[in-house]
Every structure is written in structure tokens, then in C-alpha cells.
């Protein structure tokens, strides 16, 4: 039996913990590359993997049900333990422990457990015992979908990508919406140009937006639904209060493993954690010029999962990952897709078009690497990527 340059053989058992996009792509890639050993996929969510970005879009719009957004089942040979969370990792014995106590031995382990919604409580910005509602899983989307039928006034805390998409969906469903944050919507995520474009669209659609650099605190009230208080003392309430303040890596199950888990599982440029462990997706912190950083985005999960599988098979012979930042959002009647690093500073060069609403816009920010964005304009990712090359953005 051939030993691959990564040291793994077809006698080895590969265990993958986390069965969403990164985990299923990892398994798929291993098999496509000819790995013939045993593979076990462990997933905490009780249903098949689905397209998570659709939750804040089609599912909330009421146009998608689970069947519309389910990812294709793995047709390759794989033992699936779906609906069972891993609760611990024992690196010395090379075992993972499942809820209920079962232990599964591995020769190689892939950590693809993703992330969970961050709460204001995690940031120390909530009164003790506040009932905080977040949005991350299918169940969260279905629950919110039901609540929106009563057209509640919705208060969204956090005007990042998710908060803005939630606000947009709630407005589309006939609710009124207030957004509060420490910053104007999306500035930290996208930079001033795209942030202002989307913030203005939100206000045109009727979203009420308030921010204060001193931050937001979730306060408990007598009736149970919390209210948000800005540092300047302004208070905002809603029939429904949603926290959308980012995500945290799903690493609680690794606390006793000996791995460093703060800020995500640090990987190398081939998504390796050690000689026997790889990690990919929202849980993984990839090397950047500013140190290890998580990039909880669709395309990052895909490319990291493929890289991790290649590293497991080929070791140092695998190509290191050069991340290809891709990002898209749909909110307040605007569809935005971006290639290249964000946030983008300053005013971009307009490449094509003159209005985001009428015919759409293509804009670019020169740089090494540059960024390019399309607003309400269908453009293949390959073209957008090419547009982000500095020589294609003439100032």
C-alpha cells in the first residue's frame, strides 16, 4: 500500500468533526483525490448540511425551505454521525469523545466545527441573565420567520453584514426596524464607499439607524425583552431584539485538548495544526500579516477545506493556500459582490456604470492586491477577480 507524501495511507482512519460546508468539502476532496481509507464525519446539527448564507435571505423572505438550500449529500463512502456533537478531543490517545460518551479513534483529524453566534454577553455588554436572541442556524431562521408574520418592531443590535441582511429581510416582511451599533453600518467591514451606499439604501427603505462610538449595552427589563442602550444614553426597544455581533469559533469542545483555541484554531498555510490534525472553515485562524485571523466566509471555507485535504495527502508537497477573498451580500435592494481584501479605504475608481440602481456599477480600488466590487450587476467572479488586478483599474 502506497504511503503518500503526507504520510497517510489507506489503512488510516480520518475523522472529520463538523459537517457543514468545510467538513463536507474536505471529505469530498479526500475521496476525489483517491483516498481509500475509512472516513467518519461527525456533525452536531440534526440535519444534512445546508447553504447557511441563504438563511438570512431566502429562508427569511419565506421563499426557501430546507429542500431548497440543502447541500448535496456525500455520495462517496463515509460513515456519518449526524446529530451528535463532539465534546472532547484526547490528542494523546488520538480519540474524540461524542456526547453520550462514545469515543472514536483517529489517525488523522480534521476540525471543521465552524462558529457560533457571538452574543453581547460574550463581549461583557449585556446585563446578567438577559435573554439574548441570535441568528446562526436553520432553527433560528425558521423561528424568526414565524415571528415575522406578526410584523413586530425589530431591533437589530449590530449593523454588520448579518445585521444589515436581517434588517433588510424584516423590512421586506412588513416589519419596522431599528439598527444600533458602535459604528455606522458596515464601515469596519467594507470601508466607507460601500458602507455609505448600503447605509443610504437602508435608510431609503425605512430602517432607523443609530450609532455611538462608545458602544451598545443590552439591558434587562421587567417584561423579559431586553432593550439596547447606547453609551450616550439613548435607549431603543423592540418587540423582538436580535443580536448580530459576529461569530466565535466553535472550540468549547477543544478546551481540554491542549490545543490553543483563543481566536480560533491556528493553522499553517496548508491548514495544518500538527502532523495529525488539520482545520478549515470558520473555526480556523489562517496566517496573515497581522497574525492568525479567522475569515468566516463561504469561499474561505471552500478553499481551506480543499487545502487541508491536499495537505493531509501530500504534506509539504501540497500547494500552500493563497487566499482569494470573495464576498457577497444582498440587502435593501442592492446586490453587492466583492473580490479582493476588505475593508477598502477611500473612494474607488468607477470602471463601468453610473448608478447602483440604474444598470449597476463596477468599481475598483487599485492596490497590491486590489479590490473590485459590482453593485447590482451580474458579473462572473472570474471577471471581477481580473478587474481587481491593479493594471485593470486605471485612475
Amino acid at each position: 500500500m502506497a504511503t503518500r507524501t503526507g504520510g497517510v495511507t489507506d489503512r488510516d482512519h480520518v475523522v472529520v468533526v463538523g459537517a457543514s460546508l468545510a467538513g463536507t468539502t474536505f471529505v469530498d476532496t479526500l475521496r476525489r483525490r483517491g483516498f481509500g481509507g475509512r472516513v467518519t464525519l461527525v456533525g452536531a446539527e440534526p440535519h444534512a448540511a445546508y447553504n447557511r448564507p441563504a438563511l438570512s435571505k431566502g429562508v427569511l423572505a419565506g421563499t426557501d425551505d430546507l429542500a431548497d438550500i440543502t447541500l448535496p449529500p456525500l455520495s462517496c463512502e463515509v460513515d456519518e454521525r449526524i446529530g451528535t456533537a463532539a465534546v472532547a478531543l484526547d490528542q494523546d490517545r488520538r480519540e474524540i469523545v461524542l456526547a453520550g460518551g462514545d469515543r472514536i479513534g483517529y489517525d488523522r483529524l480534521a476540525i471543521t466545527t465552524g462558529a457560533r453566534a457571538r452574543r453581547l454577553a460574550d463581549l461583557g455588554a449585556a446585563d446578567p441573565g438577559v435573554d439574548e436572541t441570535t441568528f446562526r442556524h436553520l432553527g433560528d431562521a425558521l423561528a424568526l420567520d414565524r415571528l415575522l408574520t406578526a410584523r413586530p418592531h425589530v431591533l437589530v443590535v449590530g449593523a454588520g453584514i448579518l445585521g444589515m441582511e436581517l434588517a433588510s429581510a424584516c423590512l421586506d416582511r412588513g416589519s419596522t426596524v431599528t439598527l444600533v451599533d458602535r459604528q455606522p453600518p458596515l464601515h469596519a467591514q467594507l470601508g466607507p464607499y460601500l458602507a455609505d451606499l448600503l447605509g443610504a439604501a437602508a435608510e431609503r427603505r425605512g430602517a432607523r439607524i443609530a450609532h455611538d462610538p462608545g458602544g451598545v449595552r443590552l439591558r434587562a427589563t421587567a417584561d423579559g425583552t431586553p432593550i439596547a442602550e447606547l453609551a450616550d444614553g439613548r435607549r431603543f426597544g423592540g418587540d423582538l431584539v436580535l443580536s448580530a455581533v459576529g461569530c466565535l469559533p466553535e472550540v468549547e469542545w477543544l478546551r481540554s485538548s491542549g490545543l490553543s483555541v483563543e481566536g480560533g484554531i491556528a493553522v499553517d498555510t496548508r491548514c495544518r495544526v500538527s502532523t495529525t490534525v488539520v482545520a478549515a472553515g470558520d473555526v480556523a485562524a489562517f496566517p496573515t500579516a497581522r497574525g492568525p485571523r479567522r475569515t468566516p466566509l463561504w469561499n474561505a471555507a471552500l478553499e481551506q477545506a480543499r487545502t487541508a485535504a491536499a495537505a493531509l495527502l501530500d504534506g509539504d508537497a501540497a500547494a500552500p493556500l493563497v487566499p482569494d477573498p470573495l464576498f457577497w451580500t444582498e440587502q435593501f435592494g442592492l446586490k453587492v459582490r466583492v473580490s479582493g481584501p476588505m475593508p477598502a479605504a477611500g473612494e474607488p475608481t468607477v470602471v463601468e456604470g453610473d448608478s447602483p440602481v440604474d444598470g449597476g456599477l463596477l468599481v475598483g480600488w487599485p492596490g497590491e492586491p486590489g479590490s473590485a466590487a459590482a453593485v447590482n450587476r451580474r458579473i462572473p467572479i472570474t471577471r471581477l477577480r481580473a478587474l481587481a488586478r491593479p493594471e485593470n483599474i486605471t485612475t
Partner: protein
Amino acid sequence: MKLTIDRDRCEGYGLCAEAAPQLMHLDADGELVLDAPDVPTSAAVVAEEAVRVCPVAALKSR
């Protein structure tokens, strides 16, 4: 295996065509064209990857 496109969902990102260039491409207008909607067994895994990478769940296999 058979591939189908939900035209109402498809936004023409083209990640599918990158994953499975032997099965599909974007035309000059950025519309997805399936070159092999009836997927040969040998390409089934590639086809599944194309379905999985679609950001808007517009490509389906059955």
C-alpha cells in the same frame, strides 16, 4: 445524475463552472450553460462539488 439550474436563483457567480469546467460554463452574458446536464458517472463527484459551491443554491443534482 442530472444537473438542473434554477434560473430564478442563479446570479451568474460562476463558482460552479470553476469547480466543474468540463460540465458547464458561463456564456458571454454571464449566463450559466450546462454542457453536460446528464452527468457521466465518472464526473459525479465533480458535479456534486459544483452544486455544493453555489453560493445561492441555484444548481441542483438529482
